[in-house]
């Protein structure tokens, strides 16, 4: 759902009303800060590259087995910093910089790392008065610490992989006493203070007191900044790199752009009303992780800081034409391409993880070892989700549910937005419209379907509301700067915001999801956390005041973490209500590094426009690169109304993206799949059914994502890292490594040109089984029913072709194996089966088999012999693409029994269909083509 778009609901909020009345279809940029309007960003960005004032004091160096510490001094102001350097297991280096003696502790982000990262020994290779050389162990990797000016270079052999502070942009605003208040620290009279401290800039200190250091205003909002300036900044140089990715969430291309001519990319979780595309403005979530890639290597930078953060990117090749680059290459005269990156955060410390790859998959596992992997979702949540703001009442839910059956369209989840509650009091139901929620849920359960109801983190201030009373009496609300409960405007009107950073608050919140607390809930009711940036309609930039207080920290320090904590507490609630048995499903809008552990995210309040359909691809690809695989965009577009053509194309795209949910704004006409005439209904039905046939593959990919951190929806360069032609592709994508999808995202398209990667590869159209060679741009004529999707030669994909009302209805159905042969006439794939909804897979209750085809024999072998699980599912069909006609096909089962199988061969497309081998999917077997 939902930014704050509904005028009639918030009549009290004047600003909001004005916004409504303006009625334009674009973000109101003036509601959000530019770098110039964010005083620390302006201050830091004013620093230009040059010689760093920082010097490493080598005599302070201490080296234990796992840690090197060293003091840095700023020669301008003599403030000392403490540098810590760790070599982490898995080819990572961690660099931490904090003040040596801060006036008070600075915030270090907790709860994001899954554990204290295990270290490996560091050793000094050499040392002199200019610096120290440390060994990183593997592959002759070293860290060179230069003393004056201070810089770090990570090198491998003769190549510099990455340099820190090489442009001298390390900056650390030390905490300080406010000069004008030093004499009487109690006096907090701001007006006086302002004039006073401006008059007093000439003291002995080297640093000027600049505007915005101790107080800053934006529009009508004022930030009291009691701790004064506290920003941190550091630059990274990436020699040989021309492509950088990540740092979601932005509505921008997959490949990040240079920011020299505009604002930096901003990371600050915000509820942006009607966001614009292709710009670096902050959106709902933030993952401060950047990947750098060239044909040789992939590296990553994880900047662990939860405060407002800006990232500048510049490149010495940006703006050069391909011809110019070629000329440089031919003449051999050019400098090496290089990308320079600079991170600026408002508070906290510098805590950065340098992931050295070298492959993209190494980066995924390195990052996963730090922040964890994608949670393994219930199988049903990979089905289709039907959402709308709002399904009006139980009867509406019932009739939409019946509509799916009537039109023979499968779905797994129907969603309820904010209007289902009793006056926007979450955990309650509207007593008239949803008078008997359990009857409704049981009705869905009878069809093996589920529901999601929204639970937002803003709590209506109402002394008759149990949730509010408990939070207030337990002191769980975020406080304002004066110590009272922080209150802001959101959907319910005046609302409090629980302090999810407190573990005991989260535990209490989780307990609210137990069946006896959450009245009307059942085990097929799941949860959606919206507005958790947090959204505060009357707050600065529609979010919480930075000087609000979370325990001993300011909101400034924890802002980007808030949504993650809400998501986490909710997920824990869903786990606990089932006694730890059932897997949860929770969707969130706001997120941070580590949010992948808690569930799914979506790209927020998009619009029914073709460009919004297009941008869903890079937005989800970027999230996948930084660990968040369970990503989707509102199918159809949230704001405005899609044309039937756009809606159909969006379904066709969404069906091949991980989180597949249609959603619509309250003010838009209804758009259930059958409301656009029989032709469009048939098109939508067909594509949703395709989704369901691929569920075994999706499920297996999510199992992998859970185990390894590899993205489910993948940028092409991840699988073809040495082919520069893939590096900037973001109009198509891979699912796993075996399905290539090039959705039609142009209005009135008659054809698309898909890039089929891989010199050695062949690709099979999944609809026609036509074979195409890799490493080519293929023009594909399209009609409204076309969804260009290709299966990679060399892969085996298990599918279930008996599409039923919901994924659970298909549980025991048989598999069809699609074996696509490569040029070497081999193929391999996997089959993963478990109960689909519990954590029992963690207790080895699953089937995991490797399927491979070589020498004309297709076999299934157990890759998890220690695991135990039985299935009723069997193999009903094997379809071999790119086959030649055999004389006979023999099945050999585990007990050695041989039998001849019937088959069909379609010579026109070289497809062999083996009829009904009938072996159980969990058993060993092989099949010989003779």
């Amino acid at each position, binding site marked *: 759902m939902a930014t704050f778009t509904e*005028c*009639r609901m918030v009549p009290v909020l004047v600003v909001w009303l004005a916004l*409504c009345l303006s*009625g334009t279809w674009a973000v109101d940029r003036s509601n959000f800060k530019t770098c110039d309007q964010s005083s620390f960003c302006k201050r830091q960005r004013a620093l230009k590259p040059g010689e760093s004032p920082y010097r490493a004091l080598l005599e302070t160096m201490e080296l234990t087995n796992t840690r090197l510490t060293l003091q840095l001094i700023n020669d301008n102001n003599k403030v000392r910093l403490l540098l810590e350097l760790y070599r982490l297991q898995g080819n990572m280096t961690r660099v931490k910089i904090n003040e040596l003696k801060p006036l008070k502790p600075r915030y270090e982000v907790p709860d994001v790392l899954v554990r204290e990262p295990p270290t490996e020994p560091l050793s000094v290779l050499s040392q002199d008065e200019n610096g120290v050389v440390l060994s990183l162990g593997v592959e002759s990797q070293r860290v060179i610490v230069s003393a004056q000016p201070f810089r770090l270079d990570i090198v491998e052999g003769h190549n510099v992989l990455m340099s820190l502070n090489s442009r001298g942009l390390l900056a650390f605003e030390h905490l300080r006493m406010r000069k004008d208040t030093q004499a009487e620290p109690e006096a907090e009279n701001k007006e006086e203070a302002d004039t006073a401290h401006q008059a007093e800039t000439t003291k002995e200190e080297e640093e000027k007191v600049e505007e915005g250091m101790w107080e800053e205003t934006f529009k009508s909002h004022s930030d009291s900044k009691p701790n004064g300036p506290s920003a941190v900044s550091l630059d990274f140089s990436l020699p040989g790199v021309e492509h950088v990715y990540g740092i979601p969430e932005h509505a921008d291309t997959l490949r990040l752009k240079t920011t020299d001519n505009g604002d930096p990319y901003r990371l600050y979780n915000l509820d942006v009303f009607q966001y614009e595309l292709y710009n670096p403005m902050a959106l709902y979530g933030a993952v401060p992780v950047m990947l750098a890639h060239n044909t040789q290597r992939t590296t990553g930078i994880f900047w662990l800081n939860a405060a407002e953060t800006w990232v500048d990117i510049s490149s010495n090749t940006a703006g050069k034409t391909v011809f110019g680059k070629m000329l440089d290459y031919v003449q051999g005269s050019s400098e090496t391409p290089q990308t320079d990156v600079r991170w600026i955060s408002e508070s906290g410390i510098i805590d950065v993880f340098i992931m050295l790859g070298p492959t993209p998959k190494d980066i995924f596992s390195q990052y996963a070892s730090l922040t964890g992997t994608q949670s393994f979702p219930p199988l049903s949540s990979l089905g289709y989700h039907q959402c709308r703001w709002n399904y*009006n*009442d139980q*009867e*509406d839910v019932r009739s939409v549910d019946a509509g799916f059956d009537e039109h*023979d369209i499968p779905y797994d989840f129907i969603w309820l937005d904010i209007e289902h509650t009793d006056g926007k009091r979450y955990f309650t139901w509207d007593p*008239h419209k949803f008078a008997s929620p359990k009857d409704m849920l049981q009705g869905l359960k*009878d*069809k*093996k379907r589920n529901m999601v109801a929204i639970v937002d983190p803003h709590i209506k201030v109402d002394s008759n509301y149990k949730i509010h009373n408990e939070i207030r009496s337990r002191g769980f609300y975020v406080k304002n700067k004066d110590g009272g409960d922080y209150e802001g405007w959101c959907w319910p009107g005046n609302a409090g915001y629980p302090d999810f950073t407190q573990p005991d608050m989260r535990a209490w919140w989780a307990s609210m999801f137990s069946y006896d607390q959450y009245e009307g809930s059942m085990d097929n009711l799941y949860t959606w956390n919206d507005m958790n940036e947090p959204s505060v309609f009357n707050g600065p930039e529609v979010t919480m005041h930075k000087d609000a207080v979370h325990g001993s920290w300011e909101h400034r320090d924890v802002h980007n973490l808030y949504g993650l904590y809400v998501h986490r507490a909710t997920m824990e609630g869903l786990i606990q209500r089932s006694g730890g048995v059932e897997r949860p499903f929770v969707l969130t809008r706001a997120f941070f590094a580590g949010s992948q552990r808690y569930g799914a995210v979506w790209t927020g309040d998009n619009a029914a426009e073709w460009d919004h359909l297009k941008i869903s691809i890079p937005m989800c690809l970027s999230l996948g690169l930084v660990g968040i695989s369970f990503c989707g965009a509102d199918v159809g577009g949230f704001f405005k109304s899609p044309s039937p053509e756009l809606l159909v194309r969006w379904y066709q795209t969404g069906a091949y993206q991980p989180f597949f949910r249609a959603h619509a704004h*309250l*003010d*838009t*006409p*209804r758009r259930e799949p059958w409301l656009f005439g029989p032709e469009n209904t048939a098109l939508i039905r067909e594509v949703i*059914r395709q989704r369901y046939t691929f569920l075994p593959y999706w499920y297996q990919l999510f199992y992998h994502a859970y185990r390894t951190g590899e993205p489910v929806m993948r940028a092409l360069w991840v699988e073809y890292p040495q082919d520069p032609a893939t590096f900037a592709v973001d109009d198509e994508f891979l699912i796993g490594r075996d399905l290539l999808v090039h959705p039609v995202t142009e209005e009135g398209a008659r054809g698309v040109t898909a890039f089929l990667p891989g010199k050695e590869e062949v690709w099979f159209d999944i609809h026609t089984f036509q074979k195409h060679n890799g490493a080519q741009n293929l023009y594909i004529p399209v009609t409204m029913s076309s969804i260009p999707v290709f299966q990679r030669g060399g892969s085996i994909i298990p599918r279930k*072709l*008996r*599409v*039923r*009302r919901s994924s*659970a*209805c*298909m549980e*025991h*159905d048989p598999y069809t194996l699609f074996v696509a042969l490569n040029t070497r006439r081999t193929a391999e794939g996997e089959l993963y089966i478990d109960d689909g909804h519990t954590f029992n897979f963690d207790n080895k209750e699953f089937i995991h088999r490797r399927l491979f085809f070589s020498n004309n024999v297709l076999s299934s072998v157990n890759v998890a012999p220690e695991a135990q699980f039985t299935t009723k599912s069997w193999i*009903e*069909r094997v379809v071999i693409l790119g086959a030649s006609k055999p004389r006979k096909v023999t099945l050999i089962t585990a007990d050695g029994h041989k039998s001849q199988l019937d088959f069909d061969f379609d010579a026109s497309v070289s497809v062999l269909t083996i*009829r*009904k081998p009938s072996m159980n999917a969990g058993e060993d077997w092989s099949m010989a083509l003779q």
Partner: protein
Amino acid sequence: MFWYLLLLWGGISAVEVQRPRGVPLSKRPFYEENKPFTCLDGSRTIPFDRINDDYCDCQDGSDEPGTAACPNGNFHCTNAGFRPTFIPSSHVNDGICDCCDATDEYNSGAECQNTCRELWRKEKESMQKLAEIAKEGFLLKQQLIQEAKRGLEEKQTKLGEVQNSKKDLETNVEALRTAKEAAEQPEKEAKERHLKAWEEQNAAIRMEKDKVRMAEVFIELDADGDGFVSVAELLSHSEMDPDSSDGSFTEAEAQELLGGVDKVNTAAFETIWSKIREKYVSESNTDGPAPVETPQEEVREPVSDNDSEPYPDDDIPEEEDEDEDEDEDEDMDDGDYKSPPVTRTDEKKDDSEEGAMPPYDQETQNLIDAAQKARNEFEEAERALREVDDQIRNLEKEISFDFGPSSEFAYLYSQCYELTTGEYVYRLCPFNRVSQKPKYGGSETNLGTWGKWAGPEGNVYSVMKYEQGTGCWQGPNRSTTVKLTCGKETVVTSTSEPSRCEYLMEFTSPAVCQEAPDLEVSDIHEEL
């Protein structure tokens, strides 16, 4: 191969009909036991043992009528005791009971009860209930049709009457118009006479006053009291400088003003008085207009203040001339203080100095009264004619309105029906408009005005459409679809807003009842 044993009870003996599972009796001949089966689309022929072997061989799904193997197949539920039906193959053995005879879940472990008889009983009950309603409703409908017929006739009669009376009225209006015009001519002449006499009188008074003032000015100007006004004396009144812009009042100019001589006596002064009259400012300055102005403003103030209350025509009998009327109108316009009332006040000065016009003499007044009476009578007649016109329009509209094939919906015309929900009172005024009003105060919202009958073909009178209601923010104008179902009562039974600003209202009325359906011929599959 799954065989399906169907037991059909007929009287006292059971008949067994063997056929593959999921095949309806009508298609049984296509599935001949132990003979090759040709897919019903003719696409291929397969051995009989591939029927219902849980693998899809036919593109049309016809080889798997009893399993879920084909994506496009259908399963036939016999549903003995109820209505037979087809379900999609995908519903076979999916753990959800779809056939009331439970035959679709033969291998899923789902525990399905045979509910056919229960369903039949319930359906029979509800159909009976419906039939009763329909029966009574249909009777009521006949009455409605009769009433509508009568109503229509009445209206047509009425229309005829009214049309006749319209002719009389038209004649009457014309006669009264002539009478009015005849009465107004002498009135106008008499009023003009009166006005003229008054103006002449005023002019005489003004002239007298001017003379007095001239004498006063002469004495004032003649500072040395020698009986002459000299150039020097004149120069002390710089306001009389004929070209005041140059700022100097020269002797030559003064001399010119005095007609070229150095001084003038009272008689000669008369000739130059007209030149200086407007400019001259008295030294004592006692007779300026200011004191007069103030009370005038006070008098006028309440008038301009009172702009919300239009001038009642009757309060201004036609005793003032037309200029006066215009002036009054201006007052009303200026009532909101947008422009200061000063200019107007100045204009009024003369009148007030000269006093109000004296009342009309009796003769004139009689003429005025007679004309007013003629006017009133004429207007009254015109009003009556307009009313009749409205009446005719309304009657014609109602007569030509589409109230259904037998005008059975005519009784809804100019009625309104309300339904109160948790938040709102909904109001349906058929053939007019639908509206919504918050229960606890707030203004009414138009959810659409009468558009058209919008039922499906063959049943056009089952749905009403009301369109072009109040606009929605960033959305369409509100509209309402009213679905009519048969009922004894005429009531709004429910309202909803399935999509933003598109309302749905359910409405029962006997007018939609059809002749009671014959239960016995319905497709209920009772015991054979």
